[in-house]
């Protein structure tokens, strides 16, 4: 089969649900009973209404493609996944999938708390469609990946939640299907394990042979894994195209937004279990544009449902590839934390005396952490902002998408120069102060001018940077 063969073909997919609701809801038990007695079998005043969670969705996926599915909550992403993984049947249309399909709508489906880790690996593996022999073969690898060797014969009800998800993810990660359908399962465990699992997913997707469909709210993940994106909006395919432009458009579409004022009340959350405190609005520079080298203020408006002690607030900026570039945080390094009473609302203003973000586009996120640094509210990557050049911005940074941090500190530049033929030439030492433009440790290369070169621990530039 050629590499561009169509593996998944969806045509006119639709799924409708019937919603039952009473025209006038009975407000008391007596009323409800009277209503029941009058209409013992009939639907009475009930009204039926059909709701199309998905309508007229058609697309093809070719062999080896990694397709991301994005969309707001309730747009129909999950319904689409459920149709593709055969959990529920479509109301209209058809899907053809060539090859062995595995779908992963959550990790640890069917894990039984009473069973030991070992028993659960086998059970979960067979639920996911692995053969017993296959599990035997991969067992050691799974256990090693999950880092639970010592607790294999302990019931998983005694596992810490971290161990539990690690084991669950490890089983899923060792599936070996031709077509893989994944939903939001990438973000389990602590940061180290997340990196490890993302690496594993990357291995899985990078072979080129495997076709993968991923639904995620994490645009960073989507960006780094996928080639193509389908954007589902109100149950329809709104956009189907290459990942870069699609995400850019997705981020820039933010309803009810004036310049640099962002409503986050209804934005998508991640890792937030209950609402003790909810971030409502984020304002940058009182709504004015953000410039490099100038002061930056971040206003975070919130409301609380419960008492929250020792809350730290922060906003963070990531580049389009998802690497986090800068945080403005009340706790770092100033250790400002706030005790906030229940059922109140308020505003935190964070002021940085200089915005180090170089001109370009960044993805903005916000967070509120409790005293033990667990997440109270976390709005990752909800919008995209533009940072403009300021009066102090060096010309070399203007008009280019740099999306990195410029750190200001003096740099000593040493200049050696001699004619090509002479054995040793004159060396001129000249102390110069320059602005070194460094990049976060995570991205060890930088793109100054045209050539790429590695930035060492104390990067010096051959030519003094213009300033």
């Amino acid at each position, binding site marked *: *089969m050629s590499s561009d063969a169509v593996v998944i073909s969806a045509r006119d997919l*639709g799924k409708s*649900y019937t919603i039952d609701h009473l025209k006038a809801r009975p407000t008391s038990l007596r009323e409800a009973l009277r209503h029941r007695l009058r209409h013992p079998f009939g639907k009475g005043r009930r009204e039926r209404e059909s709701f199309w969670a998905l309508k007229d969705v058609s697309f093809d996926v070719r062999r080896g493609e990694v397709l991301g599915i994005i969309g707001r909550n309730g747009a129909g992403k999950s319904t689409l996944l*459920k*149709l*593709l*993984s*055969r*959990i*529920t*049947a*479509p*109301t*209209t*249309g*058809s*899907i*053809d*999938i*060539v*090859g*062995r*399909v595995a*779908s992963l*709508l*959550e990790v640890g*489906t*069917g894990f*039984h708390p*009473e*069973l030991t880790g070992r*028993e659960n690996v*086998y*059970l979960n593996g*067979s*639920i*996911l*469609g692995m*053969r*017993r022999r296959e599990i035997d073969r991969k067992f050691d690898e799974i256990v090693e990946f999950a880092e639970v060797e010592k607790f294999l014969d302990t*019931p998983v009800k005694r596992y810490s939640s971290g161990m539990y998800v690690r084991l669950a993810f490890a089983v899923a990660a060792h599936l070996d299907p*031709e077509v893989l359908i994944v939903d939001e399962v990438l973000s389990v465990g602590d940061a180290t394990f997340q990196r490890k699992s993302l690496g594993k997913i990357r291995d899985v997707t990078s072979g080129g042979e495997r076709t993968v469909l991923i639904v995620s709210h994490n645009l960073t993940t989507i960006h780094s894994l996928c080639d193509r994106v389908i954007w589902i909006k109100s149950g329809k395919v709104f956009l189907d195209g290459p990942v870069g432009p699609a995400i850019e458009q997705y981020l820039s579409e933010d309803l009810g937004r004036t310049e640099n004022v962002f409503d986050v009340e209804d934005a998508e959350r991640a890792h937030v279990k209950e609402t003790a405190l909810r971030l409502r609005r984020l304002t940058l520079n009182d709504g004015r544009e953000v410039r490099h080298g100038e002061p930056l203020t971040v206003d975070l408006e919130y409301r609380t449902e419960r008492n929250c002690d020792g809350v730290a607030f922060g906003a963070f900026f990531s580049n389009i590839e998802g690497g986090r570039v800068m945080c403005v945080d009340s706790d770092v390094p100033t250790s400002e934390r706030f005790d906030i009473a229940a059922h109140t609302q308020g505003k935190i203003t964070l002021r940085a005396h200089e915005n180090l973000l170089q001109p370009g586009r960044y993805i903005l996120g916000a967070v509120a952490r409790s005293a033990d640094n667990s997440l109270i509210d976390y709005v990752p990557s909800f919008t995209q902002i533009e940072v403009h050049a300021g009066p102090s911005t060096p010309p070399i940074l203007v008009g280019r998408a740099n999306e990195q941090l410029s750190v200001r500190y003096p740099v000593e530049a040493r200049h050696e120069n001699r004619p090509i033929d002479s054995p040793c030439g004159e060396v001129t030492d000249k102390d110069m102060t320059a602005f070194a433009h460094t990049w976060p440790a995570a991205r060890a290369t930088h793109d100054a001018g045209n050539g790429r070169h590695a930035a060492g621990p104390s990067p010096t530039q051959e030519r003094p940077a213009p300033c």
Partner: protein
Amino acid sequence: MQVESPGIAAFMMSPTRPLARPLQSPTVRIRAHGGWSPPDLIGIVQHRELLLSLTDRDVRVRYKQTALGVAWVVLQPLLTALIFAFVFGVVAGLATNDRPYLLFAFAGLMAWNTFATTINRVGYSLVGNAHMISKIYFPRLILPLSSVCSTLVDFGVSLALMLLMLVHYRVWPGWGVLLLPVWLTILLMMGLGIGLVAASLMVKYRDVGHLIPVALQLGMYISPVAWSTSFVPEKYQWVYQVNPFFGLLGAFRWSLLGETVPSSFALAYSGLFALVCMVVGLLVFQVQERDFADVI
């Protein structure tokens, strides 16, 4: 929703009809359609390891964190039989003259418990695994089938105990014992059929879950599980004759204890009833199958 070889779809009345074994690269065809679709036999065969894993899970989980472990499989029916033997045999004086009452009660209980447990477990098999149903695909029939398999494990243990007791009391049941698998099949069909209806209905109406224990209790009283029908007044005998489980009980006792051969009419009635249960059960189940994940 079926694994089929591509290209044959045009011939099929229903797109979910199981066909020949899948080719190297199977095509999953998902089509919109309502109504009944035949059980996905190929899918069940392909998922046989899941069936075994789930059975294994059910058996293991039941006796986790118990001091006596699997011994409970034996202890439960044995203790019940002892209670029955005391209440009906000693106190009420309903003892049968030719066989030790304990054997008589245990044989009846074996049949009844297997039947009741099948209905109970099959009935709860979907709701009890709701999480799996809403998160992953597999032929849904796997769940009730694994419940039947786990009941079979219990039956096997009870049977071993029964054989030990037969040796102890020096009772030779006769060659009729070879027909026991036939009675067991009829019994399981009856239980599975009723269980499937209960399971399908319970997905939408949890009321069924409350109804099952009551119905089973009633069933036990109208089946001569622990007493002989000869103690029942003549004018109420018909209640027992109408009960399709009556013939089966007789057959079990005949095979295990060598009691009087049950009338072939009663046996045929039981067999036919089991067949009807099975067909109706599968029909109800298959009609609802596609909506389970949406409703459960």
